[in-house]
């Protein structure tokens, strides 16, 4: 489905803590997922992606977990820093049909990191 909603979930953490941002995706046929970070006044920045044939993928300080059974995606950020403060979006993609090429975005989560 399309992303809707005016009130974004928020997450506040202390610098150095680990952060977990959750996302429920809409389409069980989705087979590719991406996490983006968007800072104020900027375009979304690619963080990490995962295909549906995987349930975990790690990057630098970030880990994405995929649970296809419950259509849930999470982004874990280790040792969160003030520079991680931003809005985080998950996006899903289907490799066929009328949604081909289109990313469907979640509503976003505002992460605030306190020094």
């Amino acid at each position, binding site marked *: 489905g*399309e*992303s*809707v*909603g*005016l009130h974004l979930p928020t997450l506040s953490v202390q610098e150095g803590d680990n952060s977990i941002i959750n996302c429920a995706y809409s389409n069980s046929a989705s087979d*590719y997922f*991406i996490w*983006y970070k968007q800072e104020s006044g*900027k*375009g*979304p*920045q*690619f963080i990490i*992606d995962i295909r549906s044939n995987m349930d975990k993928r790690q990057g630098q300080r970030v880990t994405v977990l995929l649970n296809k059974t419950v259509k849930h995606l999470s982004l874990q950020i280790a040792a969160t820093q003030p520079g991680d403060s931003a809005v985080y*979006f998950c*996006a899903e*993609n289907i*490799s066929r049909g*009328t*949604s*081909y*090429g*289109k*990313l*469907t*975005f*979640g*509503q*976003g989560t505002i992460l605030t990191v306190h020094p």
Partner: protein
Amino acid sequence: EAGVTQSPTHLIKTRGQQVTLRCSPISGHTSVYWYQQALGLGLQFLLWYDEGEERNRGNFPPRFSGRQFPNYSSELNVNALELEDSALYLCASSLPLRQGKRTQYFGPGTRLLVL
């Protein structure tokens, strides 16, 4: 390596006018995508161009159109502007989908205000 570039950065128009936004993809990327991010809403898929052809279109009226040039740059045109067209317009690019590459990289966006 230069990222996705968009111009102009900001634009103010009045209702009924027409606007053209421009996007240059990352070198080597043949697919260009357009998204609308209205205030308080998530990113909504508008259009996808690949190798000069429109491949997919989101749920937007026909007054939203575009094209892709032989050098893979793209334009988004919006005719008969309405107040609700005020938004951040984001362009993204990717390697050819036929290569199985689906990661979309975003530009900084064009902020359009319709008065």
